[in-house]
């Protein structure tokens, strides 16, 4: 297994990573003997009514760690447990938000902790089957999950009578095939059903009509991995961490220009100064933070002057950004914001599923405009185009959030770094040296433009 870069071991705020680093923690026997594993599953199956489990999760205040931050207990309560016919838990393990590696960190370190949470969720909502949609490139986590599921079956925790309870439970894996859009829950469901991954319009919501037309609970890996702790210690104990509206801890993957990149468990409400400068060691000597993405590349950027922003979702919303996926990308002052934004727009243009016109066309327009600006062919006109495209991508004009995310990159970099854009577009200069992010046309859209 790869070296651990990030949080592990005993610390007051380690809910998820407390036992990470224990040798062979990925083995069921070790997870049980050392980390108190499967005690929570036994407790819910034998001692708790489903409504009480939902109650504890609600009390914990846990919010989805995938990006949207929806209240987990509330989501669980949307499923009518007593409705006849099959229901499913579908796990979003298609982690692909740029700068985000925390689900991989969990799956490689403690696959059973996550599985236990998924099984608890299934029992709670009245599902007998869990489907894990795991990104196709995650070879090592996939292998570890295959082994973990086999161990759980052998032990009888999955099967017809888990823990002796007459409640059949099974977990199945489904591999993704390289499409960022599958992180969007309805696109993921389409993909699971064997289709092109294009988001559905809602309603109906997945809780009513999800996978294969059945009521479905969709949760992120980290969200489910938190559940065993909440069952064991109580929702109130979890809610003591973090802030009132964003309780608990979350994993933040800090990457880019920092000395100690890693996946750190952070109590919500800590500042980004703590996360970036203390935990991750800040930028290399002699350099300064210029800008950071606080929650994956889709979260609007914040400049160095806002490092003291708190990590809870309310503080980030007040700063006109969001907690997103917890992926913190740090860029130092030797890099150019316009080039970085261009690189991300290429990503969003490439990953647009093509269903909604503003996103399909807007991404192309933005990429093309950035390329003119970066080739020193820009003017006021190009700046105006970028602003209009950014607006066109946002505000619910698309079925899902991909368009918004692309628009926010443009919007937020304009908001905080207007001068750098003007340097490029109007004065045809760049105020930083250093190696810029690769300026290569690789996306089909860009190639098409280049060849037009």
């Amino acid at each position, binding site marked *: 297994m*790869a070296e651990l*870069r*990030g949080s592990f071991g005993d610390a007051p705020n380690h809910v998820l990573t407390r036992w990470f680093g224990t040798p062979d923690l990925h083995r069921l026997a070790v997870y049980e003997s050392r980390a108190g594993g499967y005690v929570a599953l036994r407790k819910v199956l034998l001692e708790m009514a489903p409504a009480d489990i939902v109650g504890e999760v609600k009390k914990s205040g846990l919010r989805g760690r995938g990006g949207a931050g929806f209240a987990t207990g509330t989501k669980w309560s949307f499923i009518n447990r007593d409705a006849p016919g*099959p229901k499913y838990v579908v796990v979003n393990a298609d*982690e*692909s938000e*740029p*700068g*985000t*590696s925390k689900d*991989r960190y969990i799956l490689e370190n403690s696959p059973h902790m996550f599985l236990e949470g998924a099984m608890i969720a299934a029992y709670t909502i009245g599902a007998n*089957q869990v489907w894990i949609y795991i*990104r*196709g*490139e995650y*070879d*090592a986590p*996939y*292998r570890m999950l*295959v082994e973990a599921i086999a161990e759980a079956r052998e032990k009888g925790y999955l099967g017809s009578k888990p823990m002796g309870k007459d409640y059949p439970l*099974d977990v*199945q*894996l489904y*591999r*993704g*095939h*390289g*499409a960022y859009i599958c992180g969007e829950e309805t696109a993921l469901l389409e*993909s699971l*059903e*064997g*289709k*092109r*991954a294009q988001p559905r319009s809602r309603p109906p919501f997945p809780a009513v009509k999800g*996978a*294969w*037309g*059945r009521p479905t609970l969709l949760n992120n890996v980290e969200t489910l991995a938190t559940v065993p702790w909440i069952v064991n210690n109580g929702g109130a104990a979890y809610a003591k961490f973090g802030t009132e509206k964003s309780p608990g801890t979350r994993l933040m993957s800090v*990457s*880019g220009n920092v000395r100690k*990149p*890693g*996946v750190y468990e952070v109590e919500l409400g800590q500042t980004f100064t703590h996360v970036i400068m203390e935990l991750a060691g800040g930028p290399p000597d002699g350099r300064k933070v210029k800008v950071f*993405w606080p929650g994956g*590349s889709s979260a609007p950027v914040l400049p160095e002057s806002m490092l003291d922003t708190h990590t809870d979702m309310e503080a980030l919303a007040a700063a006109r950004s969001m907690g997103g996926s917890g*992926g913190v*990308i740090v*860029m130092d002052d030797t*890099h150019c914001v316009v080039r*970085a934004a261009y*690189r*991300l727009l290429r*990503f969003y243009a*490439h*990953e647009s599923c093509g269903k909604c016109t503003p996103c399909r066309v807007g991404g192309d327009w933005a990429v093309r405009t950035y390329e003119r600006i970066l080739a020193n062919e820009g003017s006021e006109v190009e700046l105006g185009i970028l602003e209009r495209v950014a607006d066109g991508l946002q505000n619910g004009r698309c079925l899902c959030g991909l368009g918004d995310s692309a628009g926010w990159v443009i919007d937020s970099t304009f908001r905080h770094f207007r001068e750098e854009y003007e340097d490029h577009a109007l004065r045809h200069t760049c105020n930083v040296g250093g*190696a810029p*992010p*690769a300026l*290569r046309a*690789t996306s089909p859209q860009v190639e098409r433009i280049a060849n037009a």
Partner: protein
Amino acid sequence: MSVLSPHLVDEIKALPARYPQPRSAVMPALDLAQEELGYLTPEAMSEVAVALQLDPGYVEGVATFYTLFHLQPIGKHRFYVCTNLSCSLRGSGEIVDHVKGAIGVKDAGEVSSDGLFSYEEVECLGACEFAPMMRLDHQYHYDLTVEKIDQLVAERKSPSAAAPASAPLPNPLPEGERGQPAPKRVRKKKGG
């Protein structure tokens, strides 16, 4: 003339029973075909469609949507180098340039003359704390340097070198998983 081996076609025909609805088998089936052939030819996609009782155009539509399905020949070993922001801030541009030189190709997707290698620039692979990083076949490689690239290329060029630790990933499920009881199939009477 069939391009897929008969036992593979049988395996594909058995896939739909694993899912609540048979259509979900399309991607695992394409995985099997790609594993056997290296990439998906129109004939292979048609045969997958016939085996699954789907329209060939539908199957091709799925295959073209996802980047992990290859529709053109690829090298025996594929470098998937992350060039998204976290990696490019830590030098993935130089890594890509070096990979190109080391395997002797000019462009992404081009196969080296010995047929051994091709490379792609890919989006974030979710291992950002190890940037710059890449996936080589079925294994991640971290903290990349030009020396590491040279070593990986040399290992794969030399027939006497120990087999690299990136055995192909069993698709769609490993041996131990094959033959397990299929999940109960739920089919609605109407629609679906």
